[in-house]
């Protein structure tokens, strides 16, 4: 399916969720209404003609220093690919500086759990209804979000205590029926 066809398909599936589109060096970018992202991803995943069954990556961007940028401060890019049909596209949502929050897609793809945790950890974007939104790459005592443009690269922090992980472990054991 070529780019235009994917866009047309999306416009018929969820016309109110699409804000715009762009061509990014040969790949389709669809700008999506922030609160509709989970619906859009699910529709694209389940539609047999689009069939985006592989979540390639979730990228967070802080546009606050970007020259000429007038939109919301943060962007989240979802790279999607269909293994069977071979086409790709990426969806982009933007979220404002105050309370940056995007609905989770961790119930749709297994790897979205960790990818969203990374975006939260590095950029401070919250993913609503994420089951376990904790830091992943940085230490749990770390303060701030290092990939934000206002986080100075030279800032150092003293981090000491280990993380017990028992909070995650208990949740997992509870799910398996342990008391």
């Amino acid at each position, binding site marked *: 399916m070529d780019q235009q066809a994917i866009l047309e398909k999306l416009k018929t599936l969820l016309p109110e969720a699409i804000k715009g589109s762009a061509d990014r060096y040969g790949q389709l970018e669809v700008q999506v209404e922030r609160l509709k992202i989970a619906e859009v991803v699910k529709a694209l995943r389940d539609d047999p003609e689009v069939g985006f069954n592989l979540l390639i*990556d979730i990228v967070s*961007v802080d546009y606050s220093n970007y020259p000429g940028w007038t939109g919301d401060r943060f962007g989240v*890019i979802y790279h999607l690919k269909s293994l069977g049909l071979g086409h790709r596209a990426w969806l982009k949502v933007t979220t404002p500086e105050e309370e940056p929050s995007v609905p989770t897609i961790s*119930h*749709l*793809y297994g790897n979205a759990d960790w990818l969203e945790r990374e975006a939260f950890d590095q950029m401070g974007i919250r993913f609503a209804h994420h089951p376990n939104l904790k830091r*992943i790459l940085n230490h749990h005592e770390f303060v701030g979000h290092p*990939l934000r443009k206002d986080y100075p*690269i030279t800032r150092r922090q003293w981090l000491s205590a280990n993380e017990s992980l028992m909070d995650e472990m208990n949740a997992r054991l509870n799910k398996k029926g*342990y008391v």
Partner: protein
Amino acid sequence: MIAGIDPHTLLPTAKGESSSQGLNAAQPKEKKDLVFVNIGPSHPATHGTLRALCALDGETIVAAVTEIGYLHRGFEKDTEVHTFQQCIPYTDRLNYVSAIMNNVGFCKAVERMLAIQVPERALYIRVITCELNRIIDHLVCAGANLVDIGALTNFWYSFNVREKVYNILEKLCGARLTSSYMRIGGLSRDVYPAFEDEVIAVLKEIRKGVQDVKKLISTNRIFLDRARDICVISGEKAIQYGWTGPTLRASGVEYDLRRAEPYYHYEDFKFDVPIGTIGDVYDRIFIRFYEIDESIHIIEQALRKLPGGPVMTDDKRVALPPKQQTYGNIEGLMNHFKIIMHGICPEPGEIYDATEAANGELGFTIVSDGSKNPYRIKCRPPCFMNFAAYHEMIEGVIIADAVANLGSINIIAGELDR
């Protein structure tokens, strides 16, 4: 969490199902009967700094959670204060077992942004060095994995030939592990005169090394018992977790970027994409041996076709002028000054570009604001997705199997934690 849906299996959760059935109905499963053990973060079998906290019932892992980030050093933040050229040595340290493939992945993305035509000779040398790197990556993975399950001899057989490949890489670029051999627009230097003969000789040794390993393990009862039907992951599940590369192919999904979205003339090379049958540890080890064979075929074809000519583009936006020009005329001097002081400046824009690295799809998302520093780089490390599924794969198996499985999904902490 979404009510009633298990985020990992996507199946509706039935509360208390397991505790109200069968023999367990009388005796509820209690947490106090379990022993909690940390595997890692610093343990010989983790081959890097990874941590898995396991709840054990006897020797069986009933639940596991993993923690990463012990090798996080802020690769993405670092790139934002360096020029595009200065990012190349940082990419070496992502997957340090096959550094050149990361160089190529990054350079290819920037070259696409700048619409630079890389000379044919450079492309073929990139293919040859990438496939050599794929071979040593697979040798390290399989060799180390076999050590973890007690087969030490294979480690020597595979690491012996790996050393010989490193000798070639050292002659190419002066470094063994962190090569920084690629430049945006081509290579840092051409290959040395005896390169082709030495590669052909090393391919022969690789064949022999792989054959020796295969002879030792393919009918070895201990190996087969340790590897077959252990930590099976179905193709569906692997896709669900975003797996790519050999681990996905071991689960029977034929997806290889070199075939699916060919770059660097991969469409002209004859090679097969081997796939596994069920996706157990055995499949994940053996698929790497088959891929080594295919890489050898690709290198042989590329050596036959290797054209002459320059290895660096003459595009003035990225290439330093020859030294005679820098010192001989004002235009050359200015070009040199511009590239050193002002750097490479792609047009403002966003790009995603991916290559098939040894572990799977290595992708770079680059946001450029038109300046000499990248505005934002996000690396998609293939083993991040592999490790995201690890805790689920090892639940229900014994510790020894968890170690065998960790080796088979080839976690490289350098690219996992960035």
